[in-house]
């Protein structure tokens, strides 16, 4: 690449910076607005204030929503990761007729628009009298999160030397022992990453939860309610806290996924 052109490279860099600015301005804005006294922030910004955080701290409905979010998120993470692990191992280990259908069925849910998922779930769950319960949110989020868990764990399994399993069998380990002592330890970082990422996905999902949750609203559904009501910077305060918790989960997942490679080096 001898003929590097400085002007073009500079413009490309500028373009990336603008893209990132566009992507992150709303996120950064929400942080700034959450610490701003104005109900409707504009330039020049108002004074520094933690009123919105106090408002959500003192709102029992927010706490209730937070509780629901936490219960749903933790349960969904465990269910989705277990399902995803099974699916990932099946895809890794076995060949069978209809496998592509199996994989497609497992991975398709994120491509269906959330309104349609929400409607389908609502219609189905209310038919079996589960609509409006926390369980219904868990079921719906399980469907939406399992593909992510499966993809993450599958990726890790594909880095595994297939001879490892054979070696374990040769040394007399049965399938269960191989799973327990070879595969799970190898996939462990990905399993934890899947737990954290599915939890983060569930924490932020509002549309399907809005359809099926009834009165057991999760926090994102509460935010949707705030949005429909009057302008309220409480959204920014909740959003900032949610962002920080999601980011903590993602960074933990990232560290877990990266560490084995770094150890190798």
């Amino acid at each position, binding site marked *: 690449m001898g003929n590097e052109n400085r002007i073009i490279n500079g413009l490309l860099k500028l373009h990336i910076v603008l893209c990132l600015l566009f992507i992150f301005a709303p996120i950064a804005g929400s942080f700034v607005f959450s610490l701003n006294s104005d109900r409707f922030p504009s330039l020049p910004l108002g004074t520094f204030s933690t009123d919105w955080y106090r408002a959500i701290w003192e709102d029992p409905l927010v706490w209730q929503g937070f509780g629901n979010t936490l219960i749903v998120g933790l349960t969904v993470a465990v269910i989705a990761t277990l399902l995803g692990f099974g699916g990932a191992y099946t895809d890794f280990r076995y060949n069978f007729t209809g496998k592509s259908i199996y994989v497609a069925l497992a991975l*398709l849910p994120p491509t269906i628009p959330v309104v349609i998922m929400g409607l389908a779930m609502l219609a189905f769950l209310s038919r079996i009298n589960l609509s409006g319960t926390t369980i219904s949110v868990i079921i719906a989020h399980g469907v939406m999160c399992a593909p992510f868990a499966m993809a993450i764990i599958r990726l890790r399994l594909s880095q595994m030397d297939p001879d490892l399993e054979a070696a374990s069998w040769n040394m007399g380990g049965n399938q269960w022992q191989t799973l327990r002592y070879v595969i799970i330890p190898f996939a462990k970082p990905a399993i934890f990453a899947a737990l954290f990422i599915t939890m983060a996905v569930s924490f932020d999902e509002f549309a399907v939860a809005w359809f099926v949750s009834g009165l057991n609203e999760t926090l994102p559904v509460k935010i949707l309610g705030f949005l429909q009501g009057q302008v309220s910077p409480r959204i920014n305060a909740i959003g900032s806290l949610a962002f920080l918790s999601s980011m903590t989960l993602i960074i933990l997942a990232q560290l877990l996924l990266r560490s084995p490679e770094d150890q190798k080096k």
Partner: protein
Amino acid sequence: MTKRPTFFSLILSLPLLIWQLTFFLFPLLFLVAISFWTVRNFQMTPDLNFGNWERVLSRGVFWDAYLRTFILATAAAAITSAIAFPASYAISFKMSEKAKRWMIFILIIPFFTSYLVRVYSLQVFLSDAGIINAAFAYIGLGPFSMLNNAFGVIVGMVTLTLPLVILLQTFSLNFVNRDLIEAAHNLRCGRLRTVFAVIAPSAKVGLVIAALFSFILSFGDFVSPLYLGGGNPPTLSIMITDFTKSGQQWPRAAVVAIMMIATLLTTAFAAITYAYKERGK
């Protein structure tokens, strides 16, 4: 290797299959079924009635919304792809491996922020008395109307899909054979021409699929049209929420949903056929 499945393999593979069949495929099929049901006194009764289909499909409001949604999503996909491409190109071809990994990490972050919160924040940026118009006012311009119109909706959709499109484009550009570019340069192919005649065609599948994802997400999004577009006139996804939340017209909502899925499948099929066309030749 066609043996009888072992107990072990079934324990691992079946839970996911059963879960997705029961809670994903079945609800979607059930949606098709209820589109033929009737609603009396706010109660759905099983039926084989084409009335919902007739009522929805014969109304101009539905087709207006359909066209609007389709155009908005197409525009969003085109604009997002156009904005993303130079960025993906720069990430893939101009950055070190380490910088690339950082960019990918940074671009994943938005997936884990609440889209609702971002849209609310965008309202503050875009409104008539908002941040951007205040900034314009300093230099004596505006105010520009950027909220409750198509511009607002597109901004929201681009916000939603840009990170994903950049990531997908970058991955596909990473697979472009670097020797091809070297060869093009040796043959005195200009920079821009190399991009359009060599790089874009060899990354075509990835570029088309990135645009397709942008289309799918934008087509189904109800938050941008509602909170940045004002919700009136409605898009298809707003129609679904309206039919469902007020009036209990689930069968009609189901009709709209099936039309949406049919459109998405057709578009996806067309896009993928286009993406793989002429490659084997």
